[in-house]
């Protein structure tokens, strides 16, 4: 908030903006991340759902054409990477892409917009106790929530493609093949390698997205600090615009990377070593 920035300086400003609005349920619940992401998810499914309901095979409306371009883009990416039944994979990729794009795009909204809204509607006293982070993907809970869900989907794909026994056997015999007693000796090594390989996937997915968005948000906050002084106001505005334009690329790119890696992992999980 502007008032606190004046009293507390840049340090407090940033600390304030990096604090989640936590409600104390169990281990705590980041209401801001959850609510913003849920609203954005609803925007996505309602928008696409309405277009899908009215979808016509004839000449499409501009809105339908736009939605179809996105769907076909995602489907084309999936088709290039994953050779199999795409009926469940493309919707998954589409959801990941659109949801993460929406959540990442929250970074482009003004940092102090939620604070200002609370301040003007509910007054300064409420605003003092309200924290609101706009970017759900700059919250590790969100990125890990998605990537761990993807991890279970990967497990499901691996088991459905190879069977429970085949998958278990692969965990023990790949990547190092051997025969006889050597195979038994190598089994723990293989199992360890596979566990690492499997766990790395959700962790890297979540960390990459979280790091990019958290870093981007932090840079926006530092630039916002420049705007507090009249000396750095003009360079601050220029830097803010430059970073925002660059951030459009990151917003789309990170969502795309998350989507395409998910598809690559699914394709990998379905084929044997």
């Amino acid at each position: 908030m502007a008032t606190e920035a004046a009293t507390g300086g840049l340090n407090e400003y940033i600390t304030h903006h990096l604090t989640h609005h936590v409600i104390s349920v169990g281990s705590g619940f980041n209401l801001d991340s959850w609510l913003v992401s849920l609203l954005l998810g609803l925007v996505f499914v309602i928008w696409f759902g309405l277009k899908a309901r009215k979808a016509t095979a004839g000449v499409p409306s501009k809105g339908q054409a736009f939605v179809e371009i996105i769907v076909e883009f995602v489907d084309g990416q999936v088709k290039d990477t994953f050779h199999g039944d795409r009926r469940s994979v493309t919707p998954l990729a589409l959801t990941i892409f659109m949801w993460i794009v929406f959540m990442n795009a929250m970074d482009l909204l003004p940092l102090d917009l939620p604070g200002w809204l609370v301040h003007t509607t509910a007054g300064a006293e409420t605003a003092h106790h309200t924290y609101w982070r706009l970017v759900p993907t700059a919250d590790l809970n969100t990125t890990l929530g998605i990537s761990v869900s993807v991890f279970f989907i990967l497990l499901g794909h691996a088991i459905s493609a190879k069977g429970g026994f085949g998958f278990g056997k692969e965990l023990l015999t790949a990547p190092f093949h051997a025969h006889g007693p050597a195979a038994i000796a190598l089994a723990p090594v293989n199992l360890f390698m596979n566990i690492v390989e499997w766990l790395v996937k959700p962790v890297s997915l979540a960390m990459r997205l979280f790091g990019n968005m958290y870093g981007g948000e932090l840079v926006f906050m530092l630039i916002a600090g420049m705007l507090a002084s009249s000396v750095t106001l003009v360079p601050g505005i220029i830097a803010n615009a430059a970073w925002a334009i660059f951030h459009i690329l990151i917003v789309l790119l990170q969502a795309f990377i998350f989507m395409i890696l998910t598809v690559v992992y699914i394709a990998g999980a379905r084929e044997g070593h």
Partner: protein
Amino acid sequence: MNINLTFFGQMISFGILVWFTMKFIWPPLNAAIESRQKTIADGLAAAERARQELKDADSRVADEIRKAREEATQIVERANQQYNQIVDKAKADAVAEGARQKAIAQAEIDSLSHQAREVLRQQVAALAVSGAEKILKREIDQARHRDLLDALAKEI
């Protein structure tokens, strides 16, 4: 950035979103896209067929025109031949008729000139006789010199 209950909340949100997309968004959109792709492919194929048919029809038309032109040429040729024949025949007829007329005229001229010559001869003979009479007066006896006078008249 502590991991807390939000993690599970986001997993549930994500699961619901994926389920919704899989159930209500992807199937109708994909069906619409695929059906339109099929329509477009059919349309393109139909256009290709129509183009082929048009090409065939064009070549058939060109064929027909060529044939008709040939026929017309033949007809004109035949007509020309006929025309020539007729003209030739008419010419020949005219020549023959002319010759006939000429022959008739010639014959008439011949007979007329013959008659005229005959008359002239007789008149000359008479004149000669009368001239000779005038010159010889008494010495010529009409009766005695008749054959002589005749021979003279013939010679003129």
